[in-house]
């Protein structure tokens, strides 16, 4: 009955349906878990099949309601969308597993799972949206859900951080909505592809409108994606959330906005306009700031989760750097880094969460000797950290390699050097943790490995770091075709 040709909406709908049903199930925890994980798995399978299909047949246009563009809403799945959807579904499924079997940090699991499902559904909808306003609706759902999974922890810090996140996020939404209004005003369309064809004609007539609109778009998405000067909300928000939320937020949510922005850039604005305006150079400047500031702030942190949050600021900088350099290989690197960072940052957050749960220690300075007591957890943490630094053989190396190659292709030697310097800075704050954990003096704290169900997602992610580090060729066709979308 179910034709997988409907996957572009079914992925979203299945996740939404599960989200709607879970509150009805009440306290039947087993059923709730089954529905939660089942929906995630179904989304993953559909996403996989959809990706295969996109690779075989090219871009999919799914007209919702049967109304073809420009009248109806079209879900537009190109390689970039398929890739992003796959990454989202995969990593979200693993984090969902952790949310079920990991340490319990919220009282109402049902509510928590509902929010996670809504968040993932919105993210899936966002990366596949072919219509600007549809994109906006999904942005709002994901923003609201993302804030809620921070506030659900209920501590003073998390509520305060989530309020701040909400205010800035609302500002960003306002910017995006304004920009959509301006674009609609000068094109009369909301479908991205029609906007592009119309803009070619009308852009000259309304240059200031277009410029403002793009500026608002960049700022709006920049706030949500924590691009460098707009990252101020991120460290508090990500570090005060429950562990699974932190992983989800840092690993996926910030990146989804980058994906959406880049999709708008090539689908709605068109490369001509993107190349005409100095957006690229803005990206380059801001990501340089992100690389430096994120690392420097991360170095002085003693709270494990805060350190990881600041590191996210840096890594977002890498992705923007890849897109800003705009040579095919740099874009491939940026796109790969979306996956790689999703995997390794989730890994680090989950491992840190497990460590905090098993030992009660939040401070990095007290991690000494814990590595010997919890070897598997810390080995996984080490793998993630090595990937962050960019040790070859791990996933993080590949994306850095690509971005650095792309920097040379774009004749910008300085950014290749910048990446290396930033790797060094990463090493300077990740390695001391590992060293003190494995070789430091024993602390008095008792610590044991968690049970296998809790450890499993971490180990799976650690294996994935190696897997994508050694066999990136699996993703390369997708990534290369994605780069072709940008550089035609």
């Amino acid at each position, binding site marked *: *009955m*179910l*034709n997988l040709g*409907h996957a572009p*909406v*079914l992925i979203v*709908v299945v996740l*939404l*349906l599960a989200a*709607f*049903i879970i*509150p*009805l199930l009440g*306290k039947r925890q087993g059923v709730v878990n089954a529905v939660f994980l089942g929906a995630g798995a179904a989304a993953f399978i559909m996403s996989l099949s959809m990706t295969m299909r996109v690779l075989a047949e090219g871009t999919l246009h*799914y*007209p*919702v*309601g*049967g109304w073809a563009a420009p009248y109806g809403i079209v879900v537009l799945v190109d390689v970039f969308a398929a890739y992003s959807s796959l990454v989202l579904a995969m990593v979200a499924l693993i984090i969902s597993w952790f949310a079920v079997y990991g340490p319990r940090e919220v009282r*109402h699991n049902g509510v928590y799972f509902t929010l996670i499902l809504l968040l993932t559904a919105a993210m899936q909808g966002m990366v596949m949206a072919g219509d600007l306003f549809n994109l906006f609706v999904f942005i709002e759902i994901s923003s609201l859900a993302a804030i809620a999974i921070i506030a659900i922890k209920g501590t003073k810090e998390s509520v305060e951080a989530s309020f701040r996140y909400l205010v800035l996020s609302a500002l960003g939404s306002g910017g995006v909505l304004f920009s959509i209004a301006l674009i609609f005003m000068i094109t009369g369309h909301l479908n991205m592809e029609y906007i592009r064809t119309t803009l070619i004609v009308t852009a000259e007539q309304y240059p200031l409108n277009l410029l403002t609109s793009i500026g608002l778009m960049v700022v709006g998405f920049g706030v949500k994606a924590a691009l460098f000067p707009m990252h101020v909300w991120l460290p508090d928000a990500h570090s005060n959330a429950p562990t699974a939320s932190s992983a989800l937020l840092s690993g996926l949510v910030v990146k989804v906005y980058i994906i959406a922005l880049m999709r708008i850039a090539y689908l709605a604005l068109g490369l001509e306009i993107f190349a005409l305006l100095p957006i690229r150079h803005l990206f380059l400047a801001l990501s340089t700031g992100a690389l430096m500031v994120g690392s420097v702030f991360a170095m002085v942190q003693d709270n494990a989760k805060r350190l990881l949050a600041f590191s996210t600021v840096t890594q977002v900088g890498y992705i923007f750097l890849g897109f800003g350099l705009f040579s095919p290989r740099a874009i491939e690197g940026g796109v790969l880094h979306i996956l790689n960072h999703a995997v390794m940052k989730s890994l680090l957050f989950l491992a840190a969460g497990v460590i905090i749960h098993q030992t009660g220690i939040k401070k990095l300075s007290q991690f000494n000797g814990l590595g010997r007591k919890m070897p598997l957890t810390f080995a996984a943490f080490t793998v993630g950290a090595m990937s962050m630094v960019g040790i070859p053989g791990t996933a993080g190396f590949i994306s850095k390699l690509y971005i650095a190659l792309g920097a040379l292709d774009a004749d910008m030697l300085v950014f290749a050097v910048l990446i290396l310097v930033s790797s060094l800075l990463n090493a300077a704050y990740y390695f001391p943790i590992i060293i003190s954990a494995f070789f430091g003096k024993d602390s008095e704290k008792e610590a044991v490995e968690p049970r296998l169900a809790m450890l499993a997602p971490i180990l799976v992610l650690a294996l994935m770091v190696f897997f994508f580090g050694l066999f990136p060729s699996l993703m390369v066709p997708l990534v290369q075709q994605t780069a072709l979308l940008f550089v035609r």
Partner: protein
Amino acid sequence: MNDMILEMLSRILIPATQLFGAYILFHGHLSPGGGFSGGTIIGASFILYSLVYRFTAQKHRLKHETSLWLEVGGVLVYVMAGLVGIVFGRHFLTNQGVFPTGEPGRLWSSGMILLVTLGIGAKVAGTVLKLFQELLEGGAEPDGHH
């Protein structure tokens, strides 16, 4: 004293508001209005109701289960209406050719639109009331939720 006047007033006001809301809801496809505005108006009437009787009868407070079913029922109707399209071999949320669209201008026309409007109306009414109540007294007791 005050309560009596309030009660008298509300006895007239609440049904009137609800009637107005229902009109807006049912005529969403014919005249201005629709699920969201109609639902909000009905929800507002419930809010009025709960405010007026708040001190006299705590039991009048909308039950958790009821509001939940309103909430979820509304969106489920929506999603199910959408899935019907897929089952019929068309696209998600297809109206034309799947639902009877009827004759334009009549009350029972426009197929899915009316159905979905009613669903949304129920959902929004529940949501508005629920949000208001939670903001007014939510989180007061440690485990007052269930």
